[in-house]
Structure formats: structure tokens, C-alpha cells
């Protein structure tokens, strides 16, 4: 099967000094919901910039549904819809005009453009704002406008660069629901995000990029299976006088009312509760410490940094 997106040995060197991408290769299959994760400056936005032709690659090959972005750029670009990280529309134009114009740049006949503009503005709850200048929209509305604009020519591959950055939780959830729907309808989606909960909740496959290289490319499921520890937070009634002594578990205080306990994956919590009861702790609530993927992500990025630092030392010595 032809991948929706294929990157081969993609390199980008800025100003002949900084190597932002060090020859990454990646395949994203049609219908996938794919996450590209990485810390700031890892190379995610550069990768998206190259795919959408806003950044000139130094070398390598990019194909969208088998069409090379250099030689078949017209067809490749029609397959592609991009939602960038920063707002990049004219703040003085009306919402409807922005989306209609984008349809025009893709050569959509006016009648079809009008129908599809209405469809996506309605789906993204912007129809009532269609005559409003873009600068009058809230941050969340501006993000939704960029999604509507990217979808108006109905691309088969949608790339979103941190689409929910700065968006409140309610809106973020509704955007997730919308993205799930269009993915279910057949659109391949690639997103970069800092919210690892977002990647865990939405995506089937993931690539972790750090310092211009892909340090992991696998399914979210298999990534999570690598976790063998979970951390739970226990809240006690009243002030925490001393930490409990739980054999075989790491325990640490969080604040004056709560502490955390590390538990092996799959291990029963009954023994923990039993010991807490014996030692006189009254537990009033319990929750997972943090996003599980986040722990893995931090571990992988740190491991990559250690590796890079060791390699540098070797070169220097």
C-alpha cells in the first residue's frame, strides 16, 4: 500500500550551520492518526514546513500518496491540508472570505467552494461568525478557522501543528471529537502536540523526534506497553504527619495532604491499601500521577540527550 506520507533521508540545515533535521525517514499509512512528538526545537515544525513547502529542504525525498512534492507538486499539494502552529491569515478579512479564497487557490469552482465553506464553517461552529473579521475572533475560534480553511479542499492528508495549543479544555475535547470524526471518515491525520494526553487519546502511531532524529517510531499501544511502573497519588484526610512505610514501593511526599506511591504495572493495589490501613492512614481519594506517555517521552528524550552528549564527548576527546 502506498503510504499517505513518506519521508526519506530528510535533511535541513539552516544557514549552513544548524542541522535541524538529520536525515529522518518515516512512513505514515493511509487512514492513520499519527502523532509527531518532541520537545521544542526538535524538528517537528521544520518537518511540517518541508512537507507543506514553506521550508526548503537541504536534501531528501517527500512523497504524499506516492506523489513527489518536487516533481508532482500540484497533485501532492492537493492531497495535503496544513494547519500551522501560528495564525497565518489576514486579520482584516472576513471568516467566510478566508475559507473561500483558500478553496480558490486549490482551483475549486465557486459553487463547490461555497458549499464546502458552509459545510466546514458549520462543522466547526463558525457559521454564525462568517461575516466577522478574523481579528475579532477568540483564540479558539481562530484555531478552528485554520482547520476549516485546511479542510475546504477536502484533503486526504491533514497535518496539524499543535492544533490545541492555548485552547481551553472544553474546546480541546470538542476539537478532538471533530478530528476523530474526520479520521473515521477516511482522512489521514498527522499532528504534533505538546499535550501527550492528546497523542495518547487520539493517535494510533507515534514518532518521537529529538534533535533532528527520530528516536522512536511505533504504535502508541506498544509504546505504553514498555511502561512497567505506574505512580498513584493518595490524598489523606487531615495533615500528613509522616510517610507510610510500604515495603517494595517507592513513596514520596507531594504536599501536606498527599503522597505518591510507585507500583509495578499489573500489581494489585490491595496490599498497598492493607498496609496503609494498618498504619492508620485514612485515604480520601486516589489518582494517576501523570500522563503515562509523558513519562516515557521524557525518558526517551533524556536518553537521546545522554547519547548525543556522550557522542560529543567522544568526538572532543
Amino acid at each position: 500500500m502506498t503510504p499517505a506520507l513518506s519521508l526519506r533521508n530528510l535533511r535541513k540545515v539552516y544557514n549552513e550551520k544548524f542541522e535541524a533535521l538529520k536525515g529522518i525517514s518515516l512512513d505514515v499509512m493511509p487512514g492513520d492518526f499519527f502523532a509527531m512528538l518532541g520537545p521544542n526545537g526538535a524538528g517537528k515544525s521544520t518537518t511540517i514546513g518541508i512537507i507543506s513547502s514553506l521550508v526548503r529542504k537541504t536534501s531528501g525525498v517527500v512523497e504524499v500518496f506516492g506523489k513527489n512534492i518536487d516533481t508532482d507538486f500540484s497533485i501532492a499539494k492537493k492531497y495535503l491540508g496544513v494547519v500551522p502552529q501560528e495564525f497565518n491569515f489576514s486579520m482584516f478579512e472576513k471568516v467566510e472570505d478566508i475559507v473561500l479564497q483558500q478553496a480558490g487557490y486549490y482551483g475549486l469552482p465557486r459553487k463547490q467552494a461555497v458549499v464546502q465553506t458552509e459545510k466546514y464553517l458549520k462543522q466547526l461552529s463558525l457559521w454564525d461568525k462568517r461575516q466577522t473579521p478574523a481579528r475579532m475572533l477568540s483564540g479558539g475560534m481562530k484555531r478552528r478557522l485554520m482547520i476549516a480553511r485546511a479542510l475546504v479542499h477536502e484533503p486526504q492528508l491533514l497535518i496539524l501543528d499543535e492544533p490545541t495549543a492555548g485552547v481551553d479544555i472544553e474546546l480541546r475535547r470538542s476539537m478532538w471529537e471533530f478530528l476523530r470524526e474526520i479520521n473515521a471518515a477516511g482522512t489521514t491525520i498527522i499532528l504534533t502536540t505538546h499535550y501527550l494526553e492528546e497523542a495518547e487519546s487520539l493517535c494510533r502511531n507515534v514518532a518521537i523526534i529529538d534533535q533532528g532524529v527520530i528516536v522512536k517510531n511505533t504504535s502508541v499501544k506498544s509504546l505504553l506497553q514498555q511502561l512497567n511502573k505506574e505512580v498513584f497519588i493518595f490524598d489523606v484526610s487531615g495533615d500528613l504527619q509522616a510517610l507510610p512505610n510500604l515495603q517494595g514501593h517507592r513513596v514520596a511526599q507531594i504536599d501536606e495532604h498527599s503522597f505518591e506511591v510507585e507500583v509495578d504495572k499489573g500489581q494489585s493495589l490491595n496490599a498497598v491499601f492493607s498496609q496503609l490501613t494498618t498504619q492508620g492512614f485514612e485515604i480520601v481519594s486516589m489518582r494517576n500521577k501523570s500522563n503515562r506517555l509523558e513519562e516515557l517521552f521524557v525518558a526517551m528524550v533524556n536518553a537521546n540527550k545522554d547519547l548525543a552528549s556522550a557522542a560529543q564527548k567522544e568526538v572532543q576527546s
Partner: protein
Amino acid sequence: MSLQEQWIAFLTILHKEIKRFTRIWIQTLLPPAITMVLYFVIFGKLIGSRIGDMGGFSYIEFVAPGLIMMAVLTNSYANVSSSFFSAKFQRSVEEILVSPTPNYIILLGYVMGGVARGMAVGLIVTLMSLCFTDLHIHHWFITIFIVLMTSVLFSLAGFINAVYANSFDDISIVPTFILTPLTYFGGVFYSINLLPEFWQHVSVFNPILHMVNAFRYGMLGITDVHIGLAFTGLTICVVVLFIIGMHLLKTGKRLRA
């Protein structure tokens, strides 16, 4: 993209550009109208009546083609430079750059947007001038060809300026320090025959002199320069600037990281 799709993309850019300058008509269409009325009143009526004939025509008839041409070229330039630079500044130019629209359509779309404003302002100024004098058209083809080509040329120049500009100051430097002096010394208000011989020779190197005189020839049938040279020079300049514009879009200079 099929030819039909390219046509739609071209019309989209042109429509957007026309909508932009008509939306802000107080900044784009009104000022040249007021400025030109002042020129007609002061130079045409008040001072012009004391100057007498020039080239066999009353002074106001003589300056009218130059004033129209001045309005056309400055507005064509200003439209593309400000519009494209704003798109670059706000990053909305990325909307077109990520689309399959070919580079030549992007360039043509913006240039024709500049021509549309140049022609709109030219028409307004022409109608204004009718309040002060009678206009003649000596040669329709030359008049239309020269005004269109001049508008295309300055729209292309405005596009190149916008690509290189890093700030709004950068798009006002060329009009202030280059275009305005060249226009004022470009035979809008006088015949170069009035100048000492040395300055007549120097003036020949001013491209705007050729455009203004060719246009004046189209309207009045008089010129200080050779019409064939104006035609050829204008055509060559348009081709050269078009090639430069295409090169900038192809390489992505100042547009793509």
C-alpha cells in the same frame, strides 16, 4: 492544476486584491483624486494660465496626461508592494504558498491587482481632469498600451520591493526616494526642450520620461522622445522584471525558510 483550476486561482487572487483596495478606498482611491485636483487647480489653472502654451497646447492640457500617468504608476506600485508585504508580514501569503497555485499565477494575480488599482485611479483622475480641461485621444492604441504596460511594470516593481522588504519602512523608501524624484523630473510638468542641453541628455536616462511622453503622444500627439524606444524599453523592462519576480518565487527568497 488544470488550466481551468489555474484560472480560478488567478481570479481568486485578483478578486481578493480588488476587494482589498476598494474596502480601504479612503486610503487608496480618495487621496490620489484629491491630490490630482490640487495639481489641476494650482499648476493647471492658477500657475498654468500664466505659463501659456507648451508644445502647442495650453499648459493644463499638456500636464493632464502626465498627471494621469503619475497617478497610475504610483498607485500600481503602492498596491502590490503594500498588499504583498502585508501578506508576508501577517504570514497569510502562506495560504497561497502551500496551495498548488503555480508561481506565475501568483505573480500575475498580484500584478493584475496592481493594474486594477492603477486603472481605477487613472480613470478617477481622468474624470477629474474633465472638470478642468478637454481631453483628446490622438492614438487610442498607444494610449491604452502605454498606460497598461506602465501599470504592469510598476506592479512588478512593487512585487519585487515587497519580497525584499523586511519592514513597512522598506516599502516606502523606493516611492519616496526614487519614484517621486524620477516622476517629477520625468516630464510630467514640463517639456525637456526647456532644459539646458546637458540636462536634456541626462533626462533621457529617466525611464519615466519615456512613459510619460509616450502616453502624452497617445493623447496629444506630441512627444520629447522617440515612441519606438519607449515601446521597446517598456516591453524589455516588463519582461526582465517578470523574470526576476518568477525567480524570487521559484527560489522562495524571503518567502520560504
